[in-house]
């Protein structure tokens, strides 16, 4: 098995890629995809800590349960967010977040 630090570093790289995508992309669906990358990076972290620290933490592995819950919540979030994006496209004929300024003062 690879050392813990290497797992953490690759998940940090994946998270940063996700941050870059969220900040630069204009299409709302593409921003959602980048959010998925960030969620997965965090899940990798949780699983890595659960596995590598299982003995140190009295044979519990809460991180895996959390990663499981993250998957479920992400599925719910994607369903709702894509519903909103489709709705937005129907009302404003665009899926680009910088063209949606309904709430801008």
């Amino acid at each position, binding site marked *: 098995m690879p050392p813990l630090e290497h797992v953490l570093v690759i998940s940090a790289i994946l998270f940063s890629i996700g941050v870059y995508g969220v900040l630069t992309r204009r299409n709302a669906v593409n921003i959602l995809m980048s959010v998925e990358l960030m969620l997965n990076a965090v899940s990798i972290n949780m699983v890595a800590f659960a*596995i590598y620290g299982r003995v140190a933490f009295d044979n519990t592995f809460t991180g895996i349960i959390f990663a499981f819950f993250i998957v479920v919540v992400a599925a719910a979030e994607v369903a709702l967010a894509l519903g909103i994006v489709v709705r937005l496209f129907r009302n404003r004929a665009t899926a680009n977040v910088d063209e949606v300024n309904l709430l801008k003062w």
Partner: protein
Amino acid sequence: MSATEIVFYCIAFFMIASGLGVVLARNIVHSALALILALGAVAGVYVILTVEFLALTQLVVYGAAVIMLVLFALMLTRARERPQALFGKNRPIAFVIAAGLLTAFIAGIVASEWATTNPDDIEPLPFQEIGDVLFSAWAVPFEVISVVLVIAMAGAILLSQPDQGEQ
């Protein structure tokens, strides 16, 4: 270096490459396809970390359901038909923020002392233990999360319904 580690570094390289593909692809459908590869690679990392249960969940929920939803949303919003700028104006700032975050993370990871077991002594986690914990200690959160899922699905259906009089 053991065979597991070689496979791990290959998967990690693959994951980061397809992650970059998601963020940088010019065609938005290619982004979605790169996302499948990235999420599959994450499932591979779970297998290396001996959590096959999560890897299967990942493949079923992300690799199939979430990607399906994303592709449907791309189809319904006709993202490909209208050529337009893909990136906003703040690309340099975003790059600085992402690079700064990455540097901070790596510095923190290197500087910390992790009280972990020796990687070679780690034993695989059997399916059954996860199931036992999930349905005893975590039974209530498990039920709550299923209610959340049902409400989210109902909300998504409600949101995407046409208004009265709309065609």
